């Protein structure tokens, strides 16, 4: 493995999940504005995704 590929793998490991959550949040924020009722349901899931991740991290510590 080269240094640059190792670095890009590390970069994806560090920023991959935040980017996915960021995209979900953005799509969710716009969905409720643009897509009516379906968008509203999507927004609950997508904008709520970061809250679920924090809850998961907290529960993981609590019940370890």
């Amino acid at each position, binding site marked *: 493995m080269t240094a640059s590929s190792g670095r890009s793998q*590390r*970069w994806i*490991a*560090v*920023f*991959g*999940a*935040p980017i996915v*959550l*960021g*995209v979900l*949040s*953005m799509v969710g*924020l716009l969905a*409720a*504005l*643009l*897509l*009516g009722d379906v*968008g*509203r349901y999507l*927004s*609950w899931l997508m*904008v*709520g995704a*970061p*809250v679920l*991740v*924090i809850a*998961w*991290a907290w529960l*993981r*510590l609590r019940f370890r």
Partner: protein
Amino acid sequence: MSQLVSVTNGDGEGRLKARTIRVWSLVHTWTSLISTVFLLLLCLTGLPLIFHHEIDEVLGYAPQPEAAAGRPALPPQQIVQAALAADPGRVMQYVSWDKDEPGIVMAFTNNAPDGKPDNATVRAFDAVTAKPLGLVGVGPILIVLKLHTDMFAGQPGKLFLGGIGLLFAVAIISGVVLYWPFTRRLRFATIRDRSARRVAWLDWHNLIGVVTVVWALVVGLTGVINTWAELMLSQWKANELAEMVKPYAGKPPPAKLASLDQVVTEAKQAAPGMEIAFIAYPGTPFTSSHHYAAFMRGDTPLTSRLLKPVLLDGETAEVSDTRALPAYLQALLISQPLHFGDYGGMPLKIIWAVLDILTILVIGSGLYLWLARRRKRARATAVAHAVPAQ
């Protein structure tokens, strides 16, 4: 800064990176510290504002229409007469219709058509009976709203909070840059709770900050745009509106105003498929001294936010002009729901509130980390001074 040093190696590239990281760290620290108190104020006051409708209902400040299902609404001029009778000696400024409260009409009166917003009286009326349903925009939530929007300092307060919002955005972006050196050796969502308390809070600060980054940026920047609302309105009046009312230049204000019933009928004909969000009376900040302005809305979630003005002659109610709002005012109108979080039902409001609380945690933990690092440095300095003395 010890964590920063540990993420670099000893070669030239490492020193460069360490210097770059130190600069970003300074940017992050000081943009956050300068804005901390005001951000906490905005987050704390923003929390009840998410549920302002529900809180007003519980406290008895929300107008409740009488049960009149199926009965047609009264002509709007009757609502105007009821509003003027309720506040003798005042003049009409606006009449508005809330799409979520079809049984209610709001009437804004003031001591002059261009009276200050703080001097306006807003009353709700039953759309079917014209019965007054009470004052709107009063009660404890009004105090919270004033604190949140301008800290009781008017336009300068608004612009100041807009500046704080921009600092918040810089703090968020610098925080994302710093996320890499602080977490690149850790798995995502690692919380080192068996290390020192400071380390565990650093991990929580980084995790909560990075997962809420898009929401925080959107809410922060849309808040900034909202602080420029009055400037944008002035710009619109000076350019687009001035262009629309050019044929009326030099004419005196209408001697006798056309009936609101006529205005409503003409405005609906000029914008088929749309309904009226609010009507501004001649001389108010949303129109010229000669014209009524009917602001029309569509029926989809997006078009119900994008208002289209129809200008009508103040005396005859004839349509003078209608055209879409410029892009900057459309951006303002779209930014409002994205800031308030009031467009996705109660579940989205609850998520908004949780994200607001998480932002308070990020701000609070950032302050704690800064204080803890200062204490640690002070202790290290004290030890370093004590050693030669022994």
